[in-house]
């Protein structure tokens, strides 16, 4: 018999509706799995068993009354940057020490309104700054995947490392995540899971701890394309509390899953073939092209000439916005306070102790590029480059391209401590960051394994607000590639 925690959201939904299982049983199964296995991964930093049990009980009542909502009784993990009322919310930073918000983020409220169950808060890179989940105040997250024949721990990617790891190890049915430069898609690729960064403005940012406001976007990580479609439908909304939330109705994403892609035009951007990329990545990309061709899509070579400038422009825009956003952490209104002789010294001491090295680095870069005399040379120029990156995409859409296929990451998961140079670490986001800079949606789908048996992902980039097409094309890749599960070493 299939274990309850092995059910996808779509499968669990069916069994719950048919009363084959109860929401309480499903929630208990996950809570017991977390209790046994979480120590191996450090994915959850807080488990909210009481809340979960209460929500599951309410879900069972709703189902019994014939009033089941779209996510009724589905147990989810929540990234620590979503404000959850009365529950640990620190974006895994020491500076938010003890912070328990008095309000709920719009995205999580949407999920609870649709009947979902909260299992707990998930580990992440501090303030979502990182690509390996090594910058969390709460310690590294371990990837359920290991190299064949090795028991060396590997990173799950970042910044949504706890989300990706928990989903891959079946410690939740799916998880919320967030993506500023690749923080949903890169960990999804490194853990054999599916993750989508929607169009900027699709999900409300209200109640999400801010990193870079013009780039941050909420999205799910799940086990299948369909589960992503189900979750995004609930997470997305039009929200008056976020002025960048876009007034566009949320489509029924699930209706796109399983639709034919015959006649669709898929663009292959030549600029995504970078020097030193392992051969397996290129092979996988070619394989993806074949799969889509076999499904009746038309493949066209396209050019996105400003691709190589996306990452350097990102490392101006994101730190600049971060330095402004993180100015609020001063030891006055919430979180940590480290005393000093005067108020300025209190600020300086608090921020010296409260922020980790990567966060300090980015705040410093941001402060520098925004400081007197440098605004035009850095921030303004980067914002102009952004216009050019967006224009590259616009041109592809104008030429009839429906979606763009690329690798998600330049390589598979690596070991903690293996990458110590900040700029080398930043290169992990080389294929994902363009979508953030242009604001367009991107999805990562597991597509194969490398010679060490580690998962790799393919990315589809779509037109603004055309997430439906990404689910449609994504499912074709998923069907062709199959799903990937790590060998279970943790519960033996």
């Amino acid at each position, binding site marked *: 018999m299939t274990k309850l925690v092995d059910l996808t959201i779509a499968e669990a939904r069916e069994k719950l509706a048919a009363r084959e299982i109860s929401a309480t049983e499903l929630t208990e199964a996950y809570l017991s799995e977390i209790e046994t296995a979480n120590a191996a991964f450090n994915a959850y930093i807080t488990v909210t068993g009481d809340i979960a049990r209460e929500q599951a009980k309410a879900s069972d009542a709703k189902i019994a009354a014939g009033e089941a909502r779209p996510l009724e009784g589905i147990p989810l993990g929540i990234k620590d940057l979503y404000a959850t009322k009365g529950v640990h919310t620190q974006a895994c930073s020491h500076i938010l020490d003890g912070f328990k918000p008095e309000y709920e983020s719009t995205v999580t409220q949407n999920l609870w309104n649709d009947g979902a169950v909260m299992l707990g808060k998930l580990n992440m890179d501090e303030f979502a700054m990182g690509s390996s989940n090594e910058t969390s105040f709460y310690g590294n997250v371990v990837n359920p995947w290991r190299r064949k024949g090795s028991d060396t721990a590997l990173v799950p990617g970042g910044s949504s490392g706890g989300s990706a790891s928990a989903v891959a190890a079946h410690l939740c049915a799916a998880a919320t995540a967030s993506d500023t430069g690749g923080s949903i898609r890169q960990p999804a690729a490194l853990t054999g899971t599916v993750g989508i960064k929607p169009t900027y403005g699709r999900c409300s940012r209200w109640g999400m701890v801010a990193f870079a406001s013009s780039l941050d976007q909420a999205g799910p990580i799940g086990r299948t394309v369909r589960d992503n479609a189900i979750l995004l439908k609930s997470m997305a909304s039009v929200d008056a509390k976020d002025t960048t939330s876009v007034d566009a109705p949320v489509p029924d994403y699930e209706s796109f899953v399983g639709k034919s892609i015959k006649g669709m035009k898929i663009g292959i951007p030549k600029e995504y073939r970078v020097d030193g990329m392992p051969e397996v990545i290129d092979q996988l990309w070619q394989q993806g092209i074949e799969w889509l061709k076999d499904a009746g899509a038309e493949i066209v070579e396209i050019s996105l000439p400003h691709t190589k400038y996306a990452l350097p422009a990102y490392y101006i825009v994101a730190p600049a916005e971060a330095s402004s956003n993180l100015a609020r952490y001063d030891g*006055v209104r919430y979180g940590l306070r480290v005393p000093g002789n005067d*108020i300025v010294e209190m600020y300086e001491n608090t921020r010296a102790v409260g922020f980790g090295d990567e966060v300090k680095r980015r705040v410093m870069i941001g402060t520098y590029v925004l400081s007197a005399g440098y605004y035009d040379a850095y921030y303004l120029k980067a914002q102009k480059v952004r216009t050019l990156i967006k224009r590259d995409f616009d041109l592809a859409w104008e030429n009839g391209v429906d979606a763009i296929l690329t690798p998600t990451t330049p390589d598979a998961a690596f070991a903690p401590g293996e990458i110590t140079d900040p700029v080398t670490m930043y290169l992990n986001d080389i294929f994902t960051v363009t979508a953030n800079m242009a604001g367009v949606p991107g999805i990562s789908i597991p597509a194969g394994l490398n010679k060490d048996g580690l998962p790799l992902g393919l990315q589809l980039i779509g037109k603004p607000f055309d997430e439906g097409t990404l689910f449609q094309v994504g499912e074709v890749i998923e069907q062709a590639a199959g799903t990937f599960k790590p060998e279970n070493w943790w519960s033996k």
Partner: protein
Amino acid sequence: MSVDLNTVKRVARLARIKVDDAQAEKMTGELNAILGFVEQLDEVNIDGVEPMTSVVEQSMKKRSDGKTDGDYADTIVKNAPVSEDNFFMVPKVVE
């Protein structure tokens, strides 16, 4: 462009992060590596290009200039490290 030790200390002061000499020294190298990386943007011709201000064409949403929320000061200060009578308490700033 690159930064020297004194610039790093000045920026740390602006960012209100206390750094000692050893940390500032280490940061100087790291920040220069990042600034070197972003220098690639000098190759791009940006003449006549408008800066991107939003990813989707949308006029800024406005609301009427009225009170829409509030009257829960005790909730606002609840997470403060030090508060008194619904005020945030800080070290003395005016002599």
